[in-house]
């Protein structure tokens, strides 16, 4: 892949960000309620609120605030959290890795579940195995995330004690262990989406002529599946996966709450409820960056998998 193509795509993200910034800035200020009185609570007197607003510069005209916001963003400064009193960048720096870890973990688990099962379902299509696989995932798709999360937590966590309940841990191994249930929850959801499409694309690929050609060449079945069927079936799945990363990050909002994971999802919900403007702005921008990068990566991987797509 050409570096300049990547560069170009990265440059394309910039105007998008400007739009995102304006949108978010306007959006958060449209939310009724203000950060200071929310933070100070019902009891604070008007003077105290006014003083705090002044300290935070929230008494200035909105357009000035926006100017300052953009100016600071250009210096890579997202401001300080109104509620937590620490730089937003630091907060994101601390919590984003957790969410990313969770998201990637969930994606990996989802794919690990979806791919073999989708292939199995496709190869054994219209048998009871197929029905079972599709039924189980259908179930996963029609139950709310927090419900599945709580059930997994109760069963695998509390009742059987196989996994810790919530938390994140300190080492990589601990992360893997602690985040297993939340990642499984999210992964199940993702897998449900993937299985559906992957199954039908495997079925489609299985009837493709090049698969017959491969069989006519006398290649062993496993090789045909892995080399010819899977690679082609995965092409569309990669795009779907990319599109679903956004959904995964969104799903993390709920999952992180249930599993007490200190990620950005929870941070965002708290920030919205607490009207913590800088955090909301910083996080949404970060999400926009991540999702854009994921889309870019998806395109690149897609192009890798599918030589028919040429970018350069």
């Amino acid at each position, binding site marked *: 892949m*050409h570096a*300049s*193509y990547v560069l*170009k795509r990265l440059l394309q993200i910039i105007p998008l960000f400007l739009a995102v910034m304006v949108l978010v800035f306007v959006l958060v200020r449209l939310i009724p309620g203000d950060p200071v009185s929310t933070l100070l609570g019902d009891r604070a007197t008007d003077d105290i609120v006014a003083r705090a607003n002044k300290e935070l510069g929230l008494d200035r005209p909105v357009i000035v605030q926006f100017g300052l916001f953009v100016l600071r963003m250009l210096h890579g400064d997202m401001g300080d959290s109104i509620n937590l009193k620490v730089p937003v960048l630091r907060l994101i720096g601390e919590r984003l890795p957790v969410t990313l870890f969770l998201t990637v973990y969930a994606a990996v688990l989802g794919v690990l579940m979806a791919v073999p099962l989708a292939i199995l379902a496709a190869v054994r299509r219209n048998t009871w195995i197929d029905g079972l696989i599709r039924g189980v995932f259908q179930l996963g798709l029609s139950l709310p995330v927090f419900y599945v999360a709580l059930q997994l937590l109760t069963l695998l966590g509390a009742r059987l004690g196989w996994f810790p309940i919530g938390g994140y841990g300190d080492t990589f191994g601990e992360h893997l262990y602690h985040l297993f249930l939340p990642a499984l929850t999210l992964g199940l959801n993702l897998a449900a989406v993937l299985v559906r499409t992957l199954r039908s694309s495997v079925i489609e690929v299985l009837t493709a002529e090049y698969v017959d050609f491969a069989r006519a060449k006398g290649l062993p079945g496993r090789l045909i599946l892995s080399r010819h069927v899977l690679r082609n079936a995965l092409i569309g799945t990669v795009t779907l996966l990319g599109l679903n990363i956004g959904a995964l990050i969104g799903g993390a909002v709920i999952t992180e709450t249930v599993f007490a994971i200190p990620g950005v999802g929870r941070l965002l919900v708290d920030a919205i409820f607490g009207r913590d403007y800088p955090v909301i702005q910083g996080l949404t921008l970060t999400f926009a960056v991540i999702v854009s990068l994921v889309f870019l990566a998806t395109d690149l991987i897609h192009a890798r998998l599918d030589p028919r797509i*040429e*970018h*350069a």
Partner: protein
Amino acid sequence: MSAPEAPALLNVQGLTKTFAARQGLLSRWRGQPGKVVQALSDVHLQVRRGETLGIVGESGCGKSTLARCLVRLYDADHGTVRYGDQDVLALKGAALRGYNRRVQMIFQDPYSSLNPRMTVGQVLKEALSVHRMRPPAEQDARVSELLSLVGLPPEAARRLPHEFSGGQRQRIGIARALALEPEVLIADELVSALDVSVQAQVVNLLLELQERLDLTVLFVAHDLRLVRHLSHRVAVMYLGRVVEVAPTGAVFEAPLHPYTQALLAAAPSLDPSQRRAAPAITGELPSPLNVPSGCAFRTRCPHAFDRCATERPLLQDVGGGQEVACHLYTAPSPVGAGPQHP
């Protein structure tokens, strides 16, 4: 085998059509000039009233593009098309619809050329009512009439396209075009997708309709045998250019252009005792993104010489209504390498 001598009904002059090639983003980013597909390049052609003009050539040579430009599905880049005294390429709105009513197209693919969700009756009636061909009360009768015209029973009106075989669908497509009572039918690969036996049925229908309705037909195909059977005159295209136009007999019995000769030679003969050992022509069609300079055929031409690379041969009348675009037939004559007739 003589074509009816009649004035040109459709007169195509210098028609050129390019498509922007799907270009890599990177090269666009670098500001490299976009590549273009030369689908039609300076095409001159006359279609005479009442005749069947066959158009042949290898895949990608621009046959469909020409057909589509004529019915204004594509907007040509340059050139003129005159229909009687109308400037076809300048038509708009009602005038264009009026033109399309007179000049209809029938399509190749029996599967995708009919809206899968409309019954045959709806398809035909829609054409009738949009163009107010018949008052609503008479439309049903006209639908049956059209169906019987193409050899289908009236019940067919209630059916959906998928209930018909390929040949029958092509009949429906023809009926749809005929609903507008056109003068000119442009048939793009009308029977290519059909089996020979069914193909013959549709060809017979076309012959009969042409006779009965006094239609002018532009018959685009790559089956040489079929074109020979049907056409009064034949135009041979190569890489967006017309390289030879002549009465059918001349093209098949005394082809002048080396490409026409090669094409004819490559078509498999039905006589098992006439087998050639060597291929009629070697090499592949050059990419339309990169059409050779001068004569486009020179890269595969056994007779190519210097001038072919530098100068583009123009279509010239060599007598007997036969036109050819080849330096072999234009003065100054080269080293004497005359054309070889098969």
